[in-house]
């Protein structure tokens, strides 16, 4: 069985937010909506009993409507601000992953880091343990998902997650988080953010496959799980960070070595 993981090489990150955009483009209004776990929009039980229909708004339309509503407040006074607000609204509405610029310390000892917030798909996931309805669950390949149709939005998984990886999907009014693009992975594709990243910052693969790039990096370099400073709790996080500025991924070399190892394996067998 595969055991999926991700490596984030922070030093290579440009902060271009292409991963965030790719996540929105891929998951907001695409074939992800054909997923088995497509949530229904909330509907008051009482309204149902009274026979009052609730209009179902298509996701993209809802987001655009919200963004326009908010940015309209500033459009006459400060058009630049209106633009930023519209962007902020979209990113607030869809926050499966975010890239933050973190400035630490005081001048002259200032440090800058680009921190990627994303679900760690913990092997020992507290969010799965606390969920009263099994809405949060872990697949055999380790991907942690939420079934929105079972989520009662009790919020306990939010208080259980040490990585701030969970939020309310304002459209479906259920808990939402990064899915490691399970719908793509199942088709043999890479997650959208990984595929899009121009600097090969996010690397995705199977930890159980010794030849995979993630296995190689995790094995050979000091990749730390959880945050660039190590795990927050013992949740066995499976997103690794490469915090060292000395490390530069030599993709070609890794590929070469992978090929060599594969050849060796074939020869042996």
């Amino acid at each position, binding site marked *: 069985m595969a055991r999926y993981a991700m490596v984030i090489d922070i030093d290579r990150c440009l902060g271009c937010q292409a991963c965030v955009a790719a996540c929105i483009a891929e998951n907001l209004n695409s074939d992800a909506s054909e997923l088995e776990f497509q949530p229904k929009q909330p509907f008051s039980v009482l309204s149902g009993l009274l026979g009052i229909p609730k209009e179902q708004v298509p996701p993209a339309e809802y987001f655009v409507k919200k963004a326009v509503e908010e940015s309209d407040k500033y459009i006459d006074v400060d058009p630049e601000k209106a633009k930023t607000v519209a962007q902020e609204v979209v990113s607030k509405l869809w926050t499966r992953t975010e890239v933050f610029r973190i400035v630490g310390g005081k001048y002259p000892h200032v440090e800058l880091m680009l921190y990627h917030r994303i679900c760690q798909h913990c092997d020992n996931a507290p969010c799965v343990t*606390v969920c009263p309805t099994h809405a949060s669950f872990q697949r055999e390949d380790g991907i942690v998902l939420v079934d929105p149709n079972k989520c009662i939005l*009790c919020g306990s998984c939010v208080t*259980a997650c040490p990585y701030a990886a969970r939020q309310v999907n304002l459209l479906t009014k259920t808990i939402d988080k990064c899915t490691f693009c399970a719908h793509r992975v199942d088709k043999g594709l890479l997650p959208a953010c990984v595929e899009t990243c121009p600097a090969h910052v996010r690397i995705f693969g199977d930890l159980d496959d010794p030849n995979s790039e993630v296995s190689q990096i995790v094995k050979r370099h000091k990749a730390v799980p959880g945050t660039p400073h190590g795990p927050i709790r013992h949740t066995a996080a499976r997103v690794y960070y490469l915090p060292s500025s000395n490390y530069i991924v030599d993709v070609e070399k890794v590929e070469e070595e992978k090929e060599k190892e594969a050849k060796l394996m074939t020869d042996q067998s």
Partner: protein
Amino acid sequence: MPSKLLLYAWYGVLILLVISGIYYLHAYYYEYEAWETKDIIPWGLLVPSYVYFALASTGSSIINSLYTVFGYKGPNEGFEKIIKHGVWFSLITIIPAWTMIILDLGRPDHFLSMLTSFNIVSRIAWMGVLYSFFFLMLLIELVYFIRSEVNEKLKHWKALELAIAILVLFATIAVHSNLGEVFGSSTGVPAWYGPHVGAYFIASAVLIGSAWQLFFVSIVYKAKGGLSENLKEFFVKVYNKIFIIGIPVLAFFVIWNLIVAYYYPPAWEAYKHLLYGEFSKEFIIVEVIIGLIVTFIVAVYSYIKKNFLLTFINSIILIIVGYISKFDFIISGEIARLSFNYGGLTNNLNPYYVRFWPFDYDIGLPEKMMLVLAVSIWLILLTLGEQILPLERGEKPKKLFVFK
């Protein structure tokens, strides 16, 4: 009883609040543009309020067990006189707790999954089961006490009385341990994380429960015109003793919480909010100075001077401080969440701060309305029970068939 008019006005206001609460919440839920802060403060106003009522109910139940399990009648047989009121209070006070936690669910329309897809290792899932058990046991205990007034055989069947009382105590402890674990195992909120939270809650429960019991039963007897000197003496002697022991125990756990947090920087973030931040006035002045020091001095003074009025006022203070302290403890923990060390420089920066900083928690109108709704329903039931049920010692049931 107070004049009929006053009583009707009391019911009238409460019913009006219930109706407006239901109307508002229905309209709001139908629109459903809410919960925008649910992911920042997933457990807002309603969760501390739920915890508070759960503590009041279980705390009162622990006090009841002094009589029901340990057979302590107190001076002037006070406990024997008030026990049915005490059980009724515990029983009905779990209702607002329930109401709040159900109203706090963002998707109550998915509630059925709690039954069809029960997660056996989830504390939240067990909460429903344990509260139902607790409620059922208290109901059985109340029915037993009422029926035994008309059934001699039942009255002398002490083994049964003790068995029920032990089960109630067991349910109380189970509910408590579970509640402590819900918070204590919150890996995402360092200020709550650890076994000390359960102990802190139990100490709070005893104080909140006893303060409520004293306040509620005194009001009931006053309204019925039967707050005798004997009963006042019982309250002064027993409840002050509970306060005198309970307050230092609670202070110990507050200090313990502080020490645990001090050595764990992410948890200390929450205490920064309590000690120097937006909650500092409430924490230092209300919780520590008034809630722990003043109440302790007043309890000792009124015990020595046998002053009922002061004891009564002290109970009101404990009731209010109990609520504020639970609110601050829970909300400050959520605001702080977690912090991590960045490049050797200790920072406040953490995923939550980065996402939401600067951030203040504003209590939304829907949350307030839910609180009003739950409390109004509770007060209606509490008053109705006192009117209808035969809760006096020796009082025989007249109105309800089941007790006859």
